[in-house]
């Protein structure tokens, strides 16, 4: 009994450390990537800017957290924590390899989506609590965006759960072991539209993490800084870290659901290194997309989801259901 509690504590500590370290250094990676795409070096003082994240952290922590007059103090303070905590909690159930998983549960997929939707609550509370019209507008946008993009995302996940018959992330990854041809991104007999599903899921995870080109919740050209206009100090820092933790979770989820988890494309030496390689390649593509495309409009964003992604993912669900019955 003691041993299992100790295991759980160690696992949670590792999950927090992993999430925080990733969140901190992905900011650096993002800035370096942006720099390279724009043909400039990015933060490059002291060995590729390796000290930039800790120094940013010190700077944010030493600043004063100003609570605007008339703001709802409780909501204002809860919102940044609500942005970061669910993101870290989701790491607990993500399997990095068949042995490295903090807690493998049978409803892992459901749990991650439940926590991911808490992220939109954080934005809603931040916007509502800070008594700023721009923040409220950003929250309204964010919530409508999250609702619109959770639907195709969950339909796509339903398709995969239907094919594999499990919601356990570990078993989902294990069902794709044995080379690239078993991965869910490759069209199989029972679901020929899987690459399309992958694309839908990828777009939705961009939108769910509030990444450009879907970062309407913090459209700085229209809404000052969106929902975190009134936040300074570590409140802002937590929102920022939460965003990057969500990116890591999104990339991990795509890896597990579509790209075979910790499996090698050729079936050789499966392990955590393959998982991390795939995750960081996906994160690179997130950064790459952010610095390529301009921000969409609100209507464009909602039309993309309701008119294109939802019908296609629903069609794919029906097709897969029918073909699973046939074969």
């Amino acid at each position, binding site marked *: 009994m003691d041993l299992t509690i100790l295991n759980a504590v160690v696992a949670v500590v590792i999950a927090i450390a992993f999430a925080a370290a990733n969140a901190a250094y992905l900011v650096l990676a993002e800035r370096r990537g942006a720099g390279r795409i724009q043909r400039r070096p990015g933060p490059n003082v002291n060995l590729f800017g390796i000290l930039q994240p800790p120094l940013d952290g010190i700077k944010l922590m030493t600043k004063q957290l100003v609570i605007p007059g008339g703001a709802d103090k409780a909501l204002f303070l809860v919102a940044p924590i609500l942005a970061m905590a669910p993101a870290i909690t989701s790491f607990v159930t993500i399997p990095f390899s068949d042995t490295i998983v903090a807690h493998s549960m049978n409803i892992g997929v459901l749990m991650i989506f439940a926590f991911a939707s808490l992220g939109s609550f954080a934005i809603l509370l931040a916007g509502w609590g800070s008594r700023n019209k721009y923040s409220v507008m950003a929250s309204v946008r964010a919530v409508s965006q999250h609702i619109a993009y959770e639907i195709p995302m969950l339909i796509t996940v339903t398709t995969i759960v239907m094919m594999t018959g499990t919601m356990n992330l570990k078993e989902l990854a294990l069902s794709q072991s044995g080379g690239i041809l078993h991965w869910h991104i490759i069209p199989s007999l029972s679901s020929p539209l899987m690459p399309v599903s992958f694309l839908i899921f990828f777009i939705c995870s961009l939108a769910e993490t509030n990444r450009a080109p879907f970062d309407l919740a913090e459209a700085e050209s229209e809404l000052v800084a969106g929902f975190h206009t009134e936040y300074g100090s570590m409140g802002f820092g937590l929102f920022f870290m939460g965003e990057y933790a969500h990116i890591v979770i999104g990339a991990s989820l795509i890896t597990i659901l579509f790209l075979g988890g910790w499996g090698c494309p050729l079936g050789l030496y499966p392990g955590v290194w393959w998982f991390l390689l795939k995750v960081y390649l996906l994160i690179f593509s997130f950064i790459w997309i952010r610095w390529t*495309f301009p921000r969409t409009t609100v209507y464009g964003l909602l039309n993309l989801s309701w008119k294109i992604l939802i019908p296609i993912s629903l069609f794919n669900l029906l097709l897969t259901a029918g073909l699973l019955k046939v074969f």
Partner: protein
Amino acid sequence: MGAYFSEIFLGLYSLAVGLSITFKEFFKPVVTVPYPFKTLKMCDRYRGHIELIENENGEPKCVACMMCQRGCPSGCISITTKTETYEVEVKGEMKTKKKKILTGYDLNFTTCSLCGQCIENCKFGAIEFSKEYNLASTRKEDFHFNLLNRLKERNS
């Protein structure tokens, strides 16, 4: 229905084109320099503040004709001279001649508009634009340049 799908595919294609462009740019060398540590060579036509040109003896080419001072619309050049007499032998007999010598060439860069009239006016090619651009100070006295001293410092 056909327009619906063609729009999707056209959109996806245009997105792919954009991504391929940024992907290529990602691997190209950077075009900026980390400024305080590295600087670029200034282009030939850059107009900094003016600077005296030296002759082969290391002295200013300037003959103190005052044309630059007179031509300056902002009045930011002030030249001081002294007259020197010297003896020279002309056709067997000694004659005393006078010569103007430059003793000070002060440029008040705070009012200079970099129009280049001084350089246009100089018939002896004695002044030029410098390529100096690292000029920042909190005191305006730092922009009163003594060009004669600057020439000496360059030579020493």
